[in-house]
């Protein structure tokens, strides 16, 4: 009976969850406040905190909007890559309750995750060196050395 109730509750939450963009959440905070929503985005930076409540910042894949998500230790272990320079973070789908002013975390605008899944694995990538820029720097190096020489020659005269 208890299991049935939980399945019912879980599917009710799942059914009612609306997929929204992070920007949309910010723009229509009042509407989504306290509701179950689904967001998708890249896990960035690092996980923060210890124990059963860990913060992860999720950034929209295409726009510069990010939000803090509170998730459990089990959920956090699903995320392997956190986005930063030369690392594309895992793209995750988070289902949870959106709070404009979280009661549990006063002063925070956050999402309390109910379900977290990685929909695309992130990866490390290398940036190719621009040979053009390197050649340009070499040319500039010769010009600078010549000008320094010219300056010191004139300075001695003065």
């Amino acid at each position, binding site marked *: 009976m208890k299991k049935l109730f939980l399945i019912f509750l879980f599917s009710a939450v799942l059914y009612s969850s609306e997929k929204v963009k992070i920007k949309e959440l910010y723009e229509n905070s009042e509407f989504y406040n306290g509701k179950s929503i689904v967001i998708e985005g890249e896990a960035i930076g690092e996980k923060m905190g210890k124990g059963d409540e860990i913060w992860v910042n999720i950034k929209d894949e295409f726009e510069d909007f990010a939000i803090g998500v509170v998730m459990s230790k089990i959920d956090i272990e699903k995320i392997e890559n956190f986005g930063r320079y030369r690392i594309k973070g895992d793209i995750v789908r988070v289902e949870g309750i959106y709070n404009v002013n979280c009661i549990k975390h006063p002063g925070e605008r956050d999402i309390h995750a109910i379900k977290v899944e990685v929909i695309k694995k992130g990866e490390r990538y290398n940036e190719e060196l*621009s040979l053009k*820029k*390197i050649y340009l720097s070499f040319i500039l190096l010769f010009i600078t050395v010549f000008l320094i020489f010219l300056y010191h020659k004139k300075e001695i005269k003065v």
Partner: protein
Amino acid sequence: MIPQFSRDDLKGIFHYTGKLIILLGYLFLLPLFVALLYKEWNPANDFIFSSLFSLSIGYLIVSQFPEESDINWRQGMTIASLIWLIYMFLGAIPLYLSGHYRSYLDSCFESMSALATTGLVLVNNLDHMANSYNFWRHFMCFIGGQGIILLGLLIFFRGASASIIYVGEAREEKILPNVVQTAKFIWVVSMCYLIIFTLILGIINIIHSFSFSRAFFHAICVFMAGWDTAGFAVQTQNIAYYHSPLIDIITSLIVILGAVSFGLHYALWTGKFKEIFKNYEFKTFMISIIFLTLFAYIGFIKFTKNIDFFSSFRIISYHIISGHTGVGYTNGDSFYLKNYLPDFSLILLIIAMGLGGCSCSTSGGIKMLRIGLILKELKKEVKGYSLPTSTVIVEKFHHIKDISLTDTQVKLSSIILIMYIATYIIGGIIGTFFGYPFLHSLFESTSACANVGLSVGITNPDMPNLLKITYIIEMWIGRLEFISVFVFIKYLISLRSPE
């Protein structure tokens, strides 16, 4: 008639401008070191390029104008204004090469915002930016906050030239009899706080599960942008990234220390702790923060539903402190300010931003000493009407020492006050021309001119180019407090009129 600049004037201007450009060339070596440390090869090449480019321009100018001579007031003011523009253009080069900016104008905007310690940003995808570029953004805040000229004072300028150029960068107070010693003191204080707070923030970050390298990288960047009241941050979400009330408290402390006069810092360093309770400017500053927080809080809870005491207090107090000190750090976001803060609280936040921090600090805005002096004069006038006409009223105030209020002080304070308010409003009106509501554009204009950096969302890469240029000018003149920029403009006009 506008007095002409002579050829000798030009020689002095070009000579010292060239030297300061050379200084920038060497300053690029620090982010280059960071790039090499993190094995960021492309950024490393960009910093080599930027450094060589600055050095070649600097040496070219100096080799054409090699004679070193004492400079006069108009030269000093012109150098101070000109060098900020040149640093903006050159400092923007690695930012533009990073590929995180849509245009060179956007990188110039960010560069001026950093140097003027404003904190308004146009960067794209900051969360994936290389550490060295990010370090450069924050290091520019540190250079600008301390003062480009102040740095030059330690190396190039001596004697009367030093005193003149020091004033040109909107610093009037001489903490020590010699401006070079004053410059040294300011740098020593800043470096000591840098070590202390980088350690504190780094340890907090490690407790929050950051890796050692990331913890201290974030810590040093947050300190540099906080102490110099710039408000840049390592991640897109600014201070909200950390989700930590403790970080809010520590950054509040850093920014208050940054917004306090270096004169007061000197008094504390020399053991005169009573100065905190006696200093007229500091008292005015603290009273202003307390009252504005209180009223903004009352407005917030009156108009905002479903919010508890601690949440609203954390948000309001942080933003008022952030606005008043001119740092522009946020533990929320621009949408929060735009959509959640009632107009009443937003207006109080605009007032806090407009007032600014203390004189001879790293913060911008009108400055509390000027506000205090004008209030003193008001008190004197009111008193004058209630006493016999023959009575001579002398108003005194304590700022490091006991000072009698003079008409010149009040006149200068009033001029600067009027100039700031006029610029806030003009910028606000220009914002409305592009279709933004007046209150929001006034907020953004005040934030730019008072070098704060809080935003209601107007500042973004999609904003019109003309508005970007408007804010660049506001940041520049706001940082230099008008006078030296006016002298510079006068110089440009004199170039156009050969007679």
